[in-house]
């Protein structure tokens, strides 16, 4: 029977763990497209071992195989190993301060690291929810829904945080379709019963991928209103922020 790669490596094999980490580092250093042969030659690890470890790291999604099936690159999960410190430029802070002067709601700017949410500029007068908790329950916040809508991935049923939380995957999928259509994510009392938030994405000027989210938080009942002028202000800010963050 075929040897199962996952089972051939145990905690009793420090050399295998060392090699795996060295491979991870080598791929990170080589950039996109390093081949198994390159890595084996560079690290002087026997080819068969290198191939097995590479397949294991790909199976665990720390690495990905590129479409030519020869080259490797760091996978999304590798981001969890060392979250990049996100710096917020002064110019972006100035945009946020202007926004806070115009609206009476809490205004937060959050970045995305893999599937985690990190506040770049939280509103000091209206402290936002804990970013860890927000990252665990992406389905229940507007900033989280922006991220989910961006990736269009299968949804696991989420946790019911309040009686209003949307947990049904089909219903949630419908909401995400709405987010993709309108560009605005919204939730009323789904994360904390009395609060709601609406958010728009800050997108890179080049390819338009999601860089950050800009959110307003306020009483649930008021978030539920159309708030068209507010959304317009938010979208204006997002456009201003895009070149500063991307």
């Amino acid at each position: 029977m075929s040897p199962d790669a996952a089972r051939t490596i145990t905690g009793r094999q420090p050399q295998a763990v060392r090699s795996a980490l060295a491979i991870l580092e080598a791929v990170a250093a080589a950039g996109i497209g390093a081949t198994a042969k390159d890595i084996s030659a560079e690290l002087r690890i026997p080819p068969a071992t290198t191939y097995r470890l590479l397949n294991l790291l790909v199976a665990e999604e720390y690495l990905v195989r590129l479409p030519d099936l020869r080259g490797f690159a760091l996978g999304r999960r590798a981001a969890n190993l060392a979250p990049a410190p996100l710096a917020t430029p002064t110019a972006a802070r100035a945009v946020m301060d202007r926004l806070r002067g115009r609206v009476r709601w809490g205004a937060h700017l959050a970045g995305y690291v893999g599937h985690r949410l990190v506040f770049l500029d939280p509103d000091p007068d209206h402290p936002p929810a804990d970013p860890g908790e927000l990252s665990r329950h992406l389905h229940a916040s507007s900033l989280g829904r922006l991220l989910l809508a961006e990736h269009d991935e299968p949804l696991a049923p989420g946790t019911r945080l309040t009686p209003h939380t949307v947990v049904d995957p089909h219903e949630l999928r419908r909401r995400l379709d709405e987010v993709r259509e309108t560009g605005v994510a919204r939730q009323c009392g789904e994360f904390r019963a009395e609060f709601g938030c609406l958010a728009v994405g800050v997108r890179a000027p080049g390819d338009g991928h999601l860089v950050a989210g800009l959110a307003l938080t306020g009483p649930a009942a008021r978030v539920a209103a159309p708030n068209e002028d507010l959304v317009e202000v938010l979208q204006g800010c997002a456009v201003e922020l895009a070149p500063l963050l991307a």
Partner: protein
Amino acid sequence: MRTTRGIPGLRARSPVAGLRRRTLGPLGVLAQSVATTAPAGAMAAVPLLVTTAAGRGAPWSVAIAAALVGLVVASIAVFARRMAAAGGLYSFTAKGLGPGGAYACAVSMVLGYGLLVAAALVGASWYARALVERLWPVDTTAVGVAVVVVLSGAIAACAVRGVRLAGRVMLVVEGVSITLILAVLVTLAVRAPAGPAAPLPPVGAAGIVAGVLPAVAAFIGFDSATALGVEARRPFASVPRAVAVTAGGAALLYLVAMLVHLAAPTVLPALTVAAPDGGPGAAVIGDWAPLLLDAGIIASFGACTLAALNTLVRVLFSLAREGVAPAVLGRTHRRHHTPAVAVGLAVPLLALPPVVGTLAGVEPQDLLGGLLALATVGFLAAYLLVCLAAPRFLRRIGELTPAVVVVAWVAVPVLAVVIVVALVRPGGVLLPVTVGLVVLAAVAGWVALRRTHAAELDGMGVYDETTASDLHLASRGGG
């Protein structure tokens, strides 16, 4: 397709988008392979079939078959650890043998899985009729047809609802039937008296070799998890594991059933449909056992129809996405994200032969045997091609190891011999002629497609490529 700035060839969207990507847990993936193999049903049949050919050497036939299947598993793992595809083996073969090999493999798989669905429908209806006949001695033709129709409807619905639901159903059904059959077999073997049954004749090496074919045929379908590559949560880990565990588990079950049969040769013949009155054994061991065994086998066949259908429609879906099959087969259900159109077209077509056969009064045993024999040839051809493709694929991507070359060198000739044995064994000329016709039709199809769809043929082997969103942010180039 939109490509992401900075990384050539990286698409923004997977070419197999439309299926529910990366959701199915490892148990669901395993269930797919286990149910297609249907070891519960095979356990009851394999010992009888193999001993007919190999006599007391039968366990050796099973062991040789298991070793051969092990080589195929190793070749499949080469691909399954590196790419996730909806087309299973044929998508793999495309990466090693190019469009010609991929086309041949796709034809083999459509033939194999399609006929397996039909055969399992026949099997379920046959055992259901036997079950009814044991209780009420009436004409059961209508029962047979009804079972086929109801079961086809049920599997179509399950297949459209998605592999998550289907996986749970299949796992429970298959688990229950394996337990049931094991329990019945072992209990009876222990309690059965050393009957007057004639001891099995010792058979030489030729007999053992002849026994390998029915033993290998009992494994077919263990590869079917490879068609769930797109939908599995961690395909590179769960798919190869599911294939290996299914093959290994089935080998173990068949060996146990084989040894039980050799220890108490009266038990199995007394239980199976071959002797509907229960034979001499039933008087000794009670009426409950045949009923339980029948129920287990019906359930196993039922799960097999669903699992084989799941794979078949994904192969059709994948072919359609490549433009080799009609595009309509590539449409997925809006809510359930399954190849619903392929299900709707395939199921009525596959239910037809069992219904017609039953109404025409063809012996279910013959119908099942014929369909399975042809399906087996299809599967064996696909396995041969994937073993042939593995070293070539690895050389192409620069990851060739000597072990894979050895595997291919051993597996390919042995599989070729098994296929030849399957075609020429004394069973009339119907099978070789049918296979010949299929090959001719396939060649004609290839020539026609080469003329009209050359680009699509060259593009065969679509799989779930890494997309921009799978990459670490720092590598995406966009910033």
